[in-house]
């Protein structure tokens, strides 16, 4: 990803090389103060001693990471074993977010493509059509989604009435409901970057391929998709990462029977546990995972494009 979005246009493009310092200055100032400094503070907190009921004591401690990786039994006095609880929670979240991203891509890519190939003056309207639902608060949208998917909800009524199914589908409180909720939460984050990429795709490339007797699906796979890949990658990142940390859809649609990363971390800061260093440590582990994932992706991509 990093290589992808950063390298397009190529490092050869250096029109504004002389201006780059002041061009980057606003971003550096804003983000250093508002993101980098707080994240650095979190990193420090993850190595501090927890204060009972929230807060930290300024003493170095590895307890937070120990709690994450080692299981010492209910009373904390058994010999340490590998702790699977949090790994399982992370795995579950990654899996759910991945499934939601795939779903968003399957629906979002054709949608973005379709919009980008509309006549120029219709496109703005189509884009707004995709973003209008997001003027309604996420909580309200999620609750309405739940209403639709209920056992006695309109979806089941319609399917029963049409004779498609004999008994109501139980969707609420399942993983599928969570994935649908996440998909619904972040769909424009998939559509908009892909749209921006397809919109500047040069269809002469497709024409050329067609002249060489490529079928349109071959063109799609071999020419179009590689060309709009930066948009697809941006879209996947924008859906995957927020899905990882979200807790509204899992809570309301999934029934919150199991922690997801987001609710686990939230519980450390706002819940009963009040274990700030552990919440900070879990966040740092999540951050590290995401960064490793993205770096691996960037490497694979830059190797491929070489």
């Amino acid at each position, binding site marked *: 990803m990093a290589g992808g979005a950063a390298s397009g*246009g190529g490092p050869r493009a250096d029109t504004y090389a002389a201006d780059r310092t002041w*061009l980057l200055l606003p971003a550096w100032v804003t983000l250093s103060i508002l993101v980098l400094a707080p994240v650095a503070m979190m990193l420090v907190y993850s190595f501090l001693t927890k204060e009972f009921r929230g807060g930290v004591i300024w003493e170095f401690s590895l307890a937070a990471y120990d709690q994450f990786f080692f299981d010492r039994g209910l009373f904390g006095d058994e010999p340490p074993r590998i702790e699977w609880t949090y790994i399982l929670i992370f795995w579950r979240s990654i899996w759910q977010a991945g499934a939601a991203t795939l779903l968003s891509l399957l629906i979002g890519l054709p949608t973005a493509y379709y919009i980008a190939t509309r006549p120029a003056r219709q496109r703005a309207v189509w884009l707004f059509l995709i973003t209008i639902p997001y003027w*309604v608060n996420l909580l*309200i949208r999620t609750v309405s989604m739940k209403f639709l998917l209920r056992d006695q909800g309109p979806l089941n009524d319609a399917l029963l009435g049409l004779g498609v199914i004999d008994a109501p589908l139980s969707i609420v409180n399942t993983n599928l409901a969570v994935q649908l909720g996440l998909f619904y939460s972040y769909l424009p984050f998939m559509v908009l970057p892909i*749209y921006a990429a397809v919109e500047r795709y040069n269809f002469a490339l497709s024409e050329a391929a067609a002249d060489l007797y490529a079928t349109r699906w071959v063109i799609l796979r071999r020419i179009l998709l590689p060309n709009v890949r930066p948009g697809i990658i941006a879209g996947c990142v924008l859906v995957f990462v927020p899905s990882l940390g979200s807790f509204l859809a899992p809570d309301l649609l999934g029934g919150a029977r199991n922690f997801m990363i987001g609710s686990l971390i939230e519980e450390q800061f706002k819940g009963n546990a009040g274990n700030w260093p552990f919440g900070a440590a879990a966040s740092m582990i999540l951050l590290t995972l995401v960064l490793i994932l993205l770096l691996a992706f960037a490497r694979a991509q830059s190797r491929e494009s070489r």
Partner: protein
Amino acid sequence: MAKRYDLRVYPGFRAVTFLCLFVLYAPLVVVMVYSFNASPSITNWEGLSLRWYADVFTGPESAKFKAAARNSFVIALVAASVATAIATLSATAILRGGRFRLRLVSFGLISLPLMVPEIVTAVATLIFFNAIGFDRGLLTILLAHIAFCIPFAYLPIAARMQGIEDTYEQAAMDLYATRRQAFVRVLLPLMMPGIVSGFLLAFIVSLDDFIITNFVKGAGVETLPTAIFGSVKQGIRPNIMAISTMLLAVSVVMVTLSWLISRRDTTR
């Protein structure tokens, strides 16, 4: 050359798009219908009524919701504009600034707000504001929103800029355009679709944010999401549905206006 078929058209893509719109709008229909429910419940239908719309404007919470809506819009507008500007400048440096040491680091920094779980940013920012003795209020919300909107604006903008060959600007500069002119007259117009989608993303992200806002807002300052989240803790009532429906109406009006404007532009 006679085309065998339209290469731009893929069978099924239109169907998927309409399916997509259906999925997006079905829950909104629920919201709209139940905003007209006479009953205070959101699950039992008791006939048509406008009482919840009246409640939004004249009810005991009307002042709070009005203030919250105003705050939300001002913050979203300013945060998205500033973030889009910062993102455009950064994308230009990163994609058109040649090879330099801090290039990847800069990109990483810009993406950072995306990688950090919101709740962490929220707590960390709160602790940070407290540490430097910054009073919480509307300004702290605005600053926090600008920061996390930057990557959302950046990615569509960068995705677009990558696809624009720098030959256009080079050509302009060969014709004695200054770098500034090449940027303003050539690159920016070509970038517009990316900038618009970047702004839109940033705008809705800011408009919908709850977690960070809830932590960094000052006493008595509400945005729509914090007001709505607080309100539904006491049970979801149709007045929230009415507010949502009105927000939808506002956005539809904006769409219509933008469509009319774009039509006038092309017919001129």
